[in-house]
């Protein structure tokens, strides 16, 4: 029997039992679709992370204060202070820019609109360029305004929308806590980066935040404590060298040892690799689940093929009587099993691709369909068909023609 004839016979056999064939293929369809959709979802998540890498701005080193309480009778060390930023800028080579952040949370009012628990981010002039934020309207504050503690603010996009709608807020005043603040600008929409919503915050000179929102009695002795210092590394400079420089400087300034550091230094790469390893684990879990459903689908095919061989014993006998060799019979049933899984794989691919599209369109999650996942799923489906089809096909080939012809 020629392969082409085997394919034709298999196709006819499948068409003769449409409903059963479809049900048999269902396992494979679901398996293949699951692989494609799940890989699309995790690839989508990774792409989102990639975008965040770019939107975070490149070459950033994060220095965060880690409050230590100190022992009995010891003053608590304050973690990072504002002056550390200047010290890093001046004392560490390879630093392009330093940005400081201190935050608080206040109720803000504009006219009769009140927003509670709005994050107030005190920062410095380098912030927009380092964090890749663009001004939509108005302007950012200046070094002079930081120095003079001028009570001005730039609104995040969402805050501006909620307080003023489509009207321009420039030149308006809002009440932050008990302080009157003049609005001088609005940022463009930025969205969620990691867990930070850049649009639902307001931005002020860090000196204003120190004075009005995070006053500390220790500030006079130790300086104003800050939440985070961003250090932008110069292009072509090794990040690790800069990190080591910052560490040496801060250990000295804070009078701590490397074992009792009151700060932590992380890089963007650290954050990204943590997230990437999480998504990689997530993805391989999904792939395993989907793989198991493929195997279950294969067992379904084997099951039905065994039933089919029994049911068609007489047909096998007839074919043997007119000259079909064991190899011919094996080829026929193997082709049928393969075709069930390949057609199932095709349908599953279509379902998977459209499913991934629909899922991406209807949910917040982004999906990216991977060609490799289609090949993988399709290839596994065919392999599953061949593997689970061989046993029934061999059973059929081993039938004795006389017994087979007697079978009722």
């Amino acid at each position, binding site marked *: 029997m020629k392969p082409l004839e085997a394919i034709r016979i298999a196709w006819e056999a499948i068409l003769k039992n449409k409903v059963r064939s479809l049900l048999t293929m269902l396992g494979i369809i679901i398996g293949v679709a699951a692989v494609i959709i799940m890989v699309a979802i995790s690839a989508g998540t990774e792409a989102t992370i990639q975008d965040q890498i770019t939107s975070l701005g490149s070459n950033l080193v994060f220095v965060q204060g880690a409050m230590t309480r100190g022992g009995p009778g010891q003053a608590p060390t304050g973690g990072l202070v504002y002056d550390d930023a200047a010290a890093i800028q001046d004392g560490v080579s390879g630093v392009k820019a330093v940005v400081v952040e201190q935050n608080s949370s206040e109720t803000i009012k504009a006219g009769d609109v009140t927003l509670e628990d709005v994050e107030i981010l005190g920062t410095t002039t380098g912030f927009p360029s380092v964090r890749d934020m663009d001004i939509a309207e108005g302007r950012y504050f200046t070094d002079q305004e930081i120095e003079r503690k001028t009570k001005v603010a730039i609104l995040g996009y969402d805050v501006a929308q909620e307080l003023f709608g489509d009207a321009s807020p420039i030149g308006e005043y809002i009440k932050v806590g008990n302080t009157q603040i003049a609005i001088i600008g609005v940022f463009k929409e930025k969205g969620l980066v990691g867990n930070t919503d850049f649009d639902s915050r307001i931005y002020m000179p860090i000196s204003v935040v120190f004075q009005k929102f995070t006053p500390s009695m220790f500030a006079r002795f130790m300086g104003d404590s800050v939440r985070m210092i961003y250090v932008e590394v110069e292009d072509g400079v090794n990040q690790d060298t800069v990190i080591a420089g910052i560490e040496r400087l801060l250990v000295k300034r804070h009078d701590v040892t490397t074992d009792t550091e009151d700060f932590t230094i992380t890089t963007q790469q650290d954050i990204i690799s943590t997230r990437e390893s999480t998504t990689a684990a997530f993805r391989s879990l999904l792939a395993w689940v989907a793989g198991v459903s493929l195997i279950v689908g294969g067992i379904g095919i084997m099951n039905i093929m065994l039933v089919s061989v029994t049911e068609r014993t007489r047909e096998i006998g007839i074919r*043997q009587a007119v*000259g079909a*060799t*064991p190899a011919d019979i094996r080829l026929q049933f193997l082709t049928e099993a393969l075709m069930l899984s390949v057609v199932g794989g095709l349908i599953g691919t279509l379902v998977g691709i459209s499913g991934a599209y629909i899922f991406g369109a209807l949910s917040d999650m982004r999906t990216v369909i991977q060609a490799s996942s289609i090949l993988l799923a399709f290839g596994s489906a065919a392999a599953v068909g061949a593997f689970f089809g061989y046993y029934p096909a061999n059973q059929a080939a081993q039938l004795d023609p006389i017994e087979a*012809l007697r079978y009722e």
Partner: protein
Amino acid sequence: MSATIIETVDITKIYGMGDISVAALNGINLKIEAGEFVAIMGPSGSGKSTLMHILGCLSQPTSGQYILDGEDVSHLDKAQLAAVRNRKIGFIFQAYNLLARTSALRNVTLPLLYNHADAKLSVEDGDQKARAMLELVGLGERVNHQPHELSGGQQQRVAIARALINDPVMVIADEPTGNLDSRSGEEIMNLLHKLHSQGTTIVMVTHDPKIAAHTQRTVILKDGVIDVINHNGNHHPTLEVQHEAA
């Protein structure tokens, strides 16, 4: 002189082993010449089905030699036997044994599918030949009918067309009229006679003496051996033609 199609030498077939073994055939020596129409008869248990299976290369003798068309087929493996069945033997069964939900044409071309010979027909030529065969058995108008759309007699005629498609050296008919009413049965016998008259060698297994009387010789089996061979005094056209030529 005529060619010998079937020659068996001391064929035995033993089922089971040791004490419980049963000899279904116990030394069969039989010769059938080309162009003969032979009936094999016998009560149930006489071994006639077993003999038919061996003659049809569906099973193998336990001992002895079976020479089919000059080729010793006693020791062939399954695949080789299948090839011999395909090229040299056409089967007609009591239950027709057509593929269900498959057209008469596709049933007739079925043996072509398994013809591994080099001189294999193309699909078009095969279809054409199958149509000719269906024409020959009087079903030229029902090429695309499926078995369930045909009467018993018509189904059996499709089976005959299928048996002839690979130009076999002999046709083995197992109770070909067993499932048919007498009129259809008669039509089938007439068709077999027609084939016989055209030179086809036919070996027919039956339990019906009236059907057996249609043939030239009746081989009667009893307890696994040939009991008696009756010459029915029927015309043997091919042999005579050959004699005249000689």
